[in-house]
Structures are given as C-alpha cells and as structure tokens.
C-alpha cells in the first residue's frame, strides 16, 4: 500500500497553485488535509502525476463574516469550526456537525473544502451545508464561478469541479432567528462514516423548510421547498405533520430499492425533524 510515484509541489500562493493545476492538464490532484486522498493514493485508487499541496496557502485559511453570510476559506478545518475558532452565523449548527465528524485526529487535519471537493455522500458537510443553503466559490486559472452546494455535488464522489478548478470559499448564510435546525445521522460505530443522514432547516415563521437526505449512494436528496413533506405547508406543528410516506417516496425516486435501507433513512430524517430546535 504505497502510492505510485508522483511529483509534489507546495505553493504559497493561490495563483501559483492554479497555474500548476492548469499546467497539470487533469493529471494533477489537490491535497489539503489528506484525510481521503491519502488512503486513496496508498491504495493506488488515484495515481496523479502531480500533487499540489495547498496547505501553505494562507488566503484559503481565512474565515470572515461578510454582510449576512460567513465566508470560509477552503482550508478551514473541522476542528477550527468545532472549537469555535471561527465566527459562526448558524447559531451552533455547524459547530455541532463539526464535532461529530469522524475522530478528532481526522478533524484536526481534514478541511471543509477538501470534504466538499471529495463529495463523499456519507460525509457530513455536503448534507449539512446543503440544508443550510450554502454556496461555493470555485476558482481556476481562467476565473471564478459560484454555485449552490446541491448543484455542486453531482453524484457519489462526483462534483462540478472542472480540471484545474478548486473550491476557494464556502458562503454560509446566517440562520434566521426563527429557523429550527435538526441534524441526525446513523453510524455503525463512533467516528465511522454515516449510512444515513438527515438534515432539516425549518422556519415555521417564514413557512419554509429545507430538507436533506444524505449518505445515499448518490448526491444527497435536497428538498429546498419541503412543504410536501409536511402535508403541504410549514407550520408550528410541523413535527406532527412530518409525512414519512413522502420521504419514502423521495428515496424510491432516488432509486433505493432496499426497503430496510429506506426505512433507516426515513427514520434518521424523522429524528432530525423531531430534534429540530430554534
């Protein structure tokens, strides 16, 4: 379990990194915390010619509140969020998610941008940040573009990233004072990847809800207007109105044939809804 040979660069400047990636013409890989790429290299599942280590690029470590949103650089670690070293506009939602990602050793090194770029359906951020309505800035040598996370994740381990493109920043909108947040997952054991994730951002005052069913073998199911899951409208009694049949139908539509698997997903989403709180 040793990686195939590769070249390694650790630039200090984002533009230099982007030019290296552009020159790598698709055979370059970005490494940040290395928590997923490391094992994949060792297993020779990926055999890039060049690895561009972005961990020395200071501008990707920034985190700042800008207007009504938090802008996180791609290199912010799970532990940075867990420990409250960066600002929070989600009233603890992100901190709680971060604290339950894998193990502390993984959280110390793993980055939010790396997790999103890897697009593992069982990882936390692609589901949690989809529910929170986050957007991403992607940057390449030729420019930047922005998109919602649910558009970014296109499948299991598949994203909208082009060759030579990097997740530069994550824009997390502030959570409204009236919005309830619930997040649940089921893991075989502590620190293990989840086999079911449910996330709910429900604002009874605004009558809106975003619901995510994650850790399926595809991109998370993101329901940005989730009224149908609550009998057609979002009201203060949404917990009683949660309709498991609609959730099940979403999973059927997503191609999950196994009834037990669907039952677990629905159960986890129901827990997220039941535990949702302002």
């Amino acid at each position: 379990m040793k990686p195939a040979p590769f070249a390694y660069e650790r630039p200090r400047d984002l533009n230099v990194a982007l030019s290296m990636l552009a020159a790598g013409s698709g055979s370059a890989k970005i490494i940040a915390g290395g928590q997923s790429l490391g094992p994949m290299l060792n297993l020779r599942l990926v055999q890039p010619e060049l690895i561009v280590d972005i961990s020395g690029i200071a501008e990707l470590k920034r985190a700042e509140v800008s207007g009504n949103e938090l802008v996180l650089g791609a290199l912010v670690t799970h532990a940075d969020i867990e420990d409250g070293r960066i600002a929070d506009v989600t009233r603890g939602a992100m901190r709680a998610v971060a604290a339950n990602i894998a193990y502390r050793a993984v959280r110390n090194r793993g980055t939010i941008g790396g997790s999103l770029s890897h697009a593992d359906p069982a990882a936390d951020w692609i589901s949690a940040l989809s529910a929170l309505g986050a957007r991403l800035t992607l940057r390449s040598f030729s420019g930047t573009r922005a998109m919602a996370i649910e558009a970014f994740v296109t499948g299991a381990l598949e994203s909208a990233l082009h060759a030579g493109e990097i997740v530069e920043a994550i824009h997390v909108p502030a959570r409204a004072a009236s919005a309830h947040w619930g997040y649940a997952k089921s893991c075989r054991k502590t620190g293990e990847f989840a086999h079911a994730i449910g996330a709910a951002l429900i604002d009874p005052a605004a009558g809106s809800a975003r619901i995510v069913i994650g850790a399926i073998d595809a991109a998370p199911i993101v329901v940005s207007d989730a009224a149908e899951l609550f009998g057609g409208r979002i009201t203060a009694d949404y917990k009683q109105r949660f309709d498991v049949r609609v959730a099940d139908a979403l999973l059927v539509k997503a191609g999950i044939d196994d009834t037990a698997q669907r039952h677990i997903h629905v159960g986890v989403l129901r827990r997220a809804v039941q535990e949702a709180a302002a």
Partner: protein
Amino acid sequence: MKEDAGVRNEREFPSGRSGQGVGARLPRKEDDRLMRGRGQYVADIRLAGLRDVAFVRSPLAHARIRSIHVPERYRSSVFTAADLVGVKPIRAVSGLPGFKISEQPVLATGKVRQVGELVAMCVAPTRAEAEDIAASVMLDLEELPAVYDMLKARQPGSTLVHEHWGDNVFLETNYEVDISAALDAPIKVTREISTARQCMSPLEGRGVVATFDRRLDQLTLHSAAQMPHITRSGLAECLNMEEGQIRVISPDVGGGFGHKGILLPEEVCLSWLTMQCGYPVRWTEDRREHLVASSNCREHHYKITVYADRDGTLRGIDCEATVDSGAYSSYPFSACLEAAQVASILPGPYKMPAYRCRTFSVATNKCPILPYRGVARTGVCFALELMLDLVAEEAGLEPGEVRLRNLVRPEQMPFDNITKKHFDSGDYPEAMRRALAAINIDAIRARQRQGDAAGRRVGVGVSIYCEQAAHGTSVYSGWGIPMVPGHEQASARLTPDGGLELRVGVHSHGQGMETTLAQVAHEILGIDVANIRIVLGDTAMTPYSTGTWGSRSMVMAGGAVATACRELGERARRIGAKLLQHDPASVVLQNGEVRGVNGSVGLKAIAYTWYRRPQDLPADVDPGGLEVTQGYKPVRDSGTFSYAAHAAVVAVDPDLGEVEILDYVIVEDGGVLVNPLVVDGQIYGGLAQGIGTALYEEMPFDASGQPLATTLADYLLPGATEVPAARLDHMETPSPYTQFGVKGIGEGGAIAPPAAIANAVNDALRPLGVELMQSPITPHRVVAAVLAARAAERSAA
C-alpha cells in the same frame, strides 16, 4: 474484580506472601518495553542490504493462468512459480478418513483459486518500488466461475475448486449417539444459524525478514509467528532443507489470535529468494493483504434441531454444520479442524441423552480459513445458545432457567459428556446463577414491562460455554495433522549471579508470559521475578514446541517451567548441602535459600560457586550443573475446561437498527489464576473481539468471489467506544490434572459475547416477532427483520 486472590494464595502457595508467585496480580514486566514503544517487531528489523518484496496477487477468485508478462526491464526483479524449481507446495493433510488433500503452490501454477493468491514476487530497494514493479506485471487470466457460497458448493454440479476431487468437500464427518431416542420429544425447534466470515485483525499484521548466513549454512527467518518451531518444520519440508539449516525468530509479536499460526507461502517465497539472491529480503503484510489475501475465519452455517421436554430438559440435538474452509488447507491445522471440531464440541457443558452431528469442511474460492481465538467454539456457542433461548420460549421458562436445568452439575465432576469430552472440574450452574444475579435479571424484566420512552427496546441475554484448552497428544493424534503436541519442554538455567533464564518454545504475543512464567518460577525457586528472564520466539534458543495456540501456554509451558525449576532447585539443594556440609537429606530449598539446621546458603552463592569458584566445591559434587531441560504433560492431557457465563443488556432501536450494550457481566472460572490481572486483560480483549463478531465484523463476497471489505472503512472493528466496561467476577475451581490447578483461558472472552448479545437483541425484539439468527447483527439486518415481521403480521391479520 476479585482482589482477594493473593489471600487465597498465601494459604495455598507459600510464595504468595512475596506478592510475586502464583496468584499475584503483578503488572506485566514486558509492558515497560511495549508501552513505551520500545518493542521490536519484524518491521523494525534493519539488515544491511535489505530489499523489499511486493507480490503480484490474483485479482480473480478463480481463473486459469494463460500467461504472466513481465516487462523486460524488470526480468531480474520478478520471480514466478517457474523460477522456484524444487520448492514444494504447502500440504496440510489430515489423517481423518476421507480427507481430500489440497496442494497450495507458494506461487500459483496453472490456476488461481482465491483473490489475493500469490502469482509473482517482485523485489526492489523499497516497498514502493516493488509495488511499482508488481503493477507493471500483466496477468492473462481465463476467468472461471467462482465457488463463493459454501452451501451451493456442496451441491452436485457445482464448479470445482480442485477438479480432481470430484466435489468441493475437504471432509465430511458423522457422529451419532442414538438420535432416535429424542425424536418423540414434545419440544422440537429447528433453525438455520450462521456466522459471518471474519478477519482476525491483530494490530500487527504478518511480516517476514529472511536472510542467509553462509558461514553457518543457515537460513534465518524473522517472522511474526505464534509457532516458530512449526514454521521451521513446514519450511524444511517445502524447501527440502534440514531443520538445523533453518532458524526461525519471532521477535515481539503484536497479537496472533490464530492468524500467525500458519505457514505462509510468503515465508517460503522469501526464504527461497534470500538463498537465491544472497541479500536479505522483507515482506510486510499490509492491511488490504490481511483483509483479502492471507486468511479468514469463522464462517459457519448450522441447520440445527433441538429436542426438549416440556420442562426444558434437553432430549437431544441434531445438527448439520458447514464451514467455509476456503481454497486451501492451511498448515498445520488443516482445512477440517474447524468443521470437524464442531461435532465434538457442540453439546458443550450440557447433558443430553441423544445427539447427531454431520459436518462438512467445504472448499471455496476464498482464502483459507484459520482457527481464530475460540476456534469453532464461538460459532458453536452462538448456534446452541440461540437455540436454548427458543427452547426456553417454548417451555415458558426464563432462558437462564433452561441452562440451569441442563448444565453439568459440580457433583458430577469429572464428567464425560455425550461426545466423550472429559470435563476436569467446575461449577457451571453457579457461574450462571452469579451472572443472572449480577445482571439483575428481575430488574431488567421489570424495566421491560414499563417500556422505553425513546422507542428503544431493552433486552437481556445470557450464554455459557466451556473452553477445552491445552489438549495434548491423546486428542491431537487422532486428527493426523502435521502437528501433534507432546511433552512441553522448558529449560531453566541459573546464571553465575543468581539470576534465572527460562527458555520455552511457546511464544508470547500479548499473553504476558514474560511475567506469568516468571511468577511460576518464582513460586518454585523464590527468585525475584525481576531477575528472571524469559527467552522465547527463537528456534535456536528454545526447546521444540508446537507453540502458542489452543490456550495451552500457561498450562503446558507453565507446567514445564515448574517441572524444570523443581529439578533445578533439587540440584541447587544438593550443591547447597555440600556447601553447608550437611547431609542432602537434611536440607530444604525455601524462598531462594538452601536451609539446614546450622545455616543457609542462597541460590546466588550456590550459582556463583558452581560457575566461578568451582575450587570451593567438593570432589564428589553432582556434575549435572545448574541448567536443566524438562518435559511436562498434565496428569491427563485431554485438556482443561475453563468456562464463563456471560450476560448482556442491550437497547435496540427497531427503526434505525442500532444496538447499544448497556451492561455486560462475565463470571469466569479459569481454575487457579497465575496472574488475575493478565487474565482480566485476556477477558477484556476477547470480549472486544466477541463484540466484533456479534455486531460489526463481516467479510462479504460477491458472486464472482470478490471480497467486498477491502479496507477498514468497510471491515468494521469495534473500537474503544464500542466496548463497554464489563464487570468481571472470577471463580477458581482448580484443575485436578495440572500444575497449581491452572487452566487455559486465553480464548474464552471471544466465545460467548455473540451468543449473549444476539440473545439480548432477540429478547428485546421478541414482542415484535423478530428473530435474528445470523452474525453480525447489523442495523440493516435488524430493520429488515423488523419490517419482515410487520409484513408477516399484516398478512396474517
């Protein structure tokens, strides 16, 4: 948590007062090295000119090899079967009638029969470069249908793993005691029960460093192995060498559990390579190789019927057991040890008048199965103890009560059960009663009646087993496998400064024998354990032994050390008598001194005189000296029987399928405990592995024979947060047959947890009509069973 062991020993063993002898809760001497990261494992060995080996392994489960293409530039770095002229395949036969022999070529010839089978050996200055070379070797394989399901493999017309056999059965056995007598029993319960295929997962994998010494004309093989002497015998057979030309050294070994009790084709390959090339070579097993290539364990299937009277009294068991033995018979235990053993151990500590068991050891296109901690007992205990809960349900009794009515009673000891297993001693019902009391079964029942607000369901389960350990010649001669344990030997040598060196052929890979064997020697000679060194894991420095397996080392090597130390003490006593100018009959050895009426002389002075000042010895001194080797067997070698009752309380979420262990109790009887602290460690470690079997560990295969859990992200092992703080209680019923009354206990912790936990889960879910008869109990299996039960209820309504 018994703290009074020392008190008992003060009474029974004089040295108990020193706090170092048999029964002392002594911290492990070896931990000073191991806990500081100063152990030396195979992968730590550095030899000048050392090169690394990576193997080209079969990507397919079953295929004919058309050709192996090695790029021109790597021709001198790659070796295939065609290069290994004269190297014999590994043959692990059994003398049991009808056993079919497999030949495992050390590098594949003709066919590959499992994913991960060795095809070519690549050598380079580093492992990474060796893997680069391995990646460049192209295999042209003609894929054949894979034999991946042991039950289908038994059917006529199945694809054959070894064509010339005519079927896929290594061995079929039949055992019967008057099953017809049970058939009219009012309670008859039949089920199919299975345990998943597992990987043993010691912290340290296998590893080999091989080098050849031209001066000594000797191959030295450093290997992470449990049984260095057996490895040497196997190597000598495969390589046509004299045993004296081979030295096997097992340095510190990070856990064995059976995984390191096999002769590896890699060991043969690297031995050949170093002799061929003249430089030292190394191969270190990586985790993927461990998971998919070298050996698995535990895959059992039972079709079992239990007969009982209305009051829960067992009338008989009828069972057909199938074990997936994989593609090859592993050396030395063979492909049939696991399955054929099922027939003799299934009845366990229960009385019954009728019994029938048919077993099949089946060849499949998977890696060989090896005996894993508990060997077949974990599967057997799972099958029988789950069935007894169903008998309890039929009889309307508490599960614990059914056990109490059928367990062998203390007044029946020694007891020969229906398969003629000879139980040396013990009080099984007492262990079960203590476990039931400790888990507070009445409180659990009351809690169940109240229900759980969170929607989880609480259940309680028990299990009990017996662990035959240190069984010797009389048991193993019948198997006809390459290894039969005889007298276990130990050498004891007083050093000139009065220290003691003990040499034993067993190995210690977590068992703490550098401490416990020293305690045994201290018990006899009174020498401070700090001044006792244990030499093990080296064929050149230790007496021959079949090694460490079968929970045998404390009984066998402990007994041998005691025997050797007694003889050494006797010799020292006679020299001491000369020095004291006493009649030898008038002096005794006590607490490290030879004492007579007019004075005493210490072992240190005796040793110093013998070695350094022989001029002070009288001319007629016994010339035997202060170094002895003695052999030992227990009074009866049919094995010691330790046992334990386990009780588990779980909470099950029927919607998510999650199982949480709320409480766990173990009441264990391992005879006299040489070191209760070490025993506690053994039990905790075994429990962790048992929890793995119960809830987490599974190596699934697809229909093409591909192993699907190829990393630890897929193959789940319990971690610290999954293992509860179990409560331990010790009983100590001495064995009448062994030194000090000790029994083997190394495996027991891993035997009973799957049964206790599964029974607890079934107890929790029984009101829902759910029954789980397969390990591991995963969330998916729980939920699928809950949904199936609901569907059945709807269709019945």
